[in-house]
């Protein structure tokens, strides 16, 4: 029940207040299988449940194609605004220390080494997938009233053959009342972790994901650690994963701590969440304050890609706005904190002029 409500609210985020055709809904809510079959950063099972593949064919027939998280343009924009701060990406990890090694390098060798480091950084910055919440499983296979009262506990039967993708495994539960049903998603995750343990994942979710403990983590600015633990523990389409991610993003938005996630692999997901929720004001202000106006323009472009029928997108198309002008158009039309954005832009422009005059 709670899952359904969450799903409904998710749909609302994506649709906005405009009414779309039901065909479009399907295209939005169900994923393009081809996009998901690309190599994912996590060692997830590659195969999808068969029912999703069949509905994917319908989305190609819709006229307005809503950009998904996995689209190339969207990914390019998100990678651009994430930034590439090598110092932060390769922060010293907490591990057993060994004395450093030294090399004598020419300028060319140094640049080569930096390029290698940038390549490794890009691998580290691969974004975890943003998926829809999975529909709960309510499939009953058999009802045997004869067995009622014979057993006191539930029995879980799992197919532990090695070469089946985890999503296609058969896991069934025989209740004490005699019903034979398919296991729920949480039960599936727990049982798969018992038989095929993954590193960093616990059978039962650790207590750090409880409300009070999450609040403590947020107060200590450890949002990145929370998100990393969440990725390790939960599947990307599970309720808890999405809930924790949204909670973290909301806390960051409330306190304006966007810089914590910059140069991490979570920044793209955060930006995507804000754009879908139409709440990019705080992020824009933070970017302008840090002199990242190109990133701000990219963010507004992404917003226009996702909401092409909004007032700001139409204004921009009419005026043919570019660069800072685009941000001004957005600030005037759709932003909640439009005044703040304009003020920050003004301050930035004055600072820019004075700096260029001085130099």
């Amino acid at each position, binding site marked *: 029940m709670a899952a359904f409500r969450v799903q409904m609210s998710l749909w609302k985020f994506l649709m906005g207040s405009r009414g779309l055709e039901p065909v479009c809904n399907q295209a939005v809510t169900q994923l393009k299988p081809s996009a998901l079959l690309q190599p994912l950063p996590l060692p997830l099972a590659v195969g999808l449940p068969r029912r999703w593949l069949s509905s994917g064919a319908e989305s190609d027939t819709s006229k307005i194609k809503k950009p998904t998280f996995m689209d190339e343009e969207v990914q390019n924009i998100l990678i651009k605004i994430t930034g590439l701060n*090598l*110092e932060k*990406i*390769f*922060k*010293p*990890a*907490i*591990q057993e*220390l*060994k*004395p*450093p*090694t*030294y*090399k*004598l*390098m*020419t*300028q*060319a*060798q*140094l640049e080569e*080494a*930096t390029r*290698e*480091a940038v390549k*490794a950084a890009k691998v580290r910055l691969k974004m975890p997938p943003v998926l829809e919440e999975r529909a709960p499983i309510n499939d009953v296979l058999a009802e045997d009233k004869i067995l009622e009262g014979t057993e006191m506990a539930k029995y879980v039967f799992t197919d532990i053959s090695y070469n089946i993708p985890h999503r296609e495994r058969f896991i069934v539960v025989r209740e004490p009342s005699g019903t034979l049903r398919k296991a729920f998603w949480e039960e599936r995750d727990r049982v798969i972790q018992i038989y095929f343990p993954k590193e960093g994942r616990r059978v039962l979710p650790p207590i750090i994901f409880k409300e009070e403990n999450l609040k403590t983590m947020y107060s200590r600015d450890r949002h990145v650690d929370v998100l990393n633990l969440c990725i390790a523990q939960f599947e990307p389409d599970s309720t808890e994963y999405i809930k924790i991610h949204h909670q973290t993003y909301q806390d960051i938005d409330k306190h304006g701590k966007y810089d914590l996630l910059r140069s991490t692999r979570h920044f793209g997901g955060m930006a995507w969440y804000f754009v879908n929720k139409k709440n990019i004001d705080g992020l824009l202000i933070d970017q302008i304050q840090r002199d990242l106006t190109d990133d701000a323009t990219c963010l507004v472009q992404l917003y226009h890609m996702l909401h092409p029928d909004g007032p700001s997108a139409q204004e921009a198309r009419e005026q043919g706005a570019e660069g800072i002008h685009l941000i001004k158009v957005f600030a005037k039309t759709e932003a909640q904190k439009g005044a703040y954005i304009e003020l920050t832009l003004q301050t930035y422009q004055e600072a820019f002029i004075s700096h260029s005059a001085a130099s």
Partner: protein
Amino acid sequence: MAAAVRAARCLPSLRGVPAGHFWSRQLAHSAFPAASALSSKTGTLSSVTAEELWKGALAETGAGARKGRGKRSKKKRRKDLNRGQIIGEGHSGFLWPGLNAPLTKNGVVQAIAQRSKEEQEKVEADLFQQREEWDRKRKIKVKRERGWSGNTWGGMSLGPPDPGPNGETYEDFDTRILEVRNVFNMTAKEGRKKSVRVLVAVGNGRGAAGFAIGKATERIDAFRKAKNKAIHYLHYIERYEDHTIFHDISLRFKRTHIKMKKQPRGYGLRCHRAIITICRLIGIKDMYAKVSGSVNMLNLTRGLFQGLSRQETHQQLADKKGLHVVEFREECGPLPIVVASPQGALRKDPEPEEEVPDVRLDWEEVKAAQGMKRSVWAGLKRAAT
């Protein structure tokens, strides 16, 4: 006759009177009737000073005390028996105004009085208690700081060196003793003459350190000499990020081999205890050092200072080779960190790299790496630093 003269000296008030045993007795009777009891107690036969008595009792000079034959347990200590004594206090308990009683009370000159028996007993008991307490206080063993172990002077601190003649103070320098040795020299007159030789190191924990030896007959004089000499022989030792050396050093000084390895933060000083002391004075916090061959303290110290002073900083290496010195840390992944760039020209051609590095291997290290070393002391868990 001589005894009588000495008696007269003891009683200064009767100096003018021709001294005589009989005379002094008579005078005592007539002038101070109460004081007759006192005079009978003074030793009028042979009066000796406390100094002379103690000199006789302690026997500091003598054949037994010379040439280091005196045992430490047989040494007696001088005690001042007149401590706590007030002139005027006596066994009878008389109160003499001006001596042990106030001279005037409300403007009236007081007369000579006597204490009651109980009061006198109490006063005497108090004095006895006080003297016992003084004795107890003197017997308490003062806890002194331990050096490397209980009975050794190595590793003990001597405080900062004494200020110089032009007013310079060395408050931030700490001195540590490294070795105290009794050395002997044959002389013509006394034969074996003992001298104390002390090796001391000073340092301020920020790179400036030095060492010196001081020699004197007495231990404390030797400490002082060494301390004040060491402060004039300071080396400045470059440290990498203020916690370790720049690179591994393996050196041989006379017959002492020292092999020092650079370690990351938090490793601590796992070295010979003398090297730990010296590194603490320099300010090095993380290092591994192995001493093999001779462990002569003086050569060890000299070799260590020589090796540390001849370190090549990253900047010097970069200038020498004309290339960037780039650091790769395990915990930072493949990120290159440029530590030093050459100040002069930057070379274009890279450093030649062979497949097999032309480095002299250390057999002990190879054995340890291959697992051939059977030693109980390798990898032993000790207390930090």
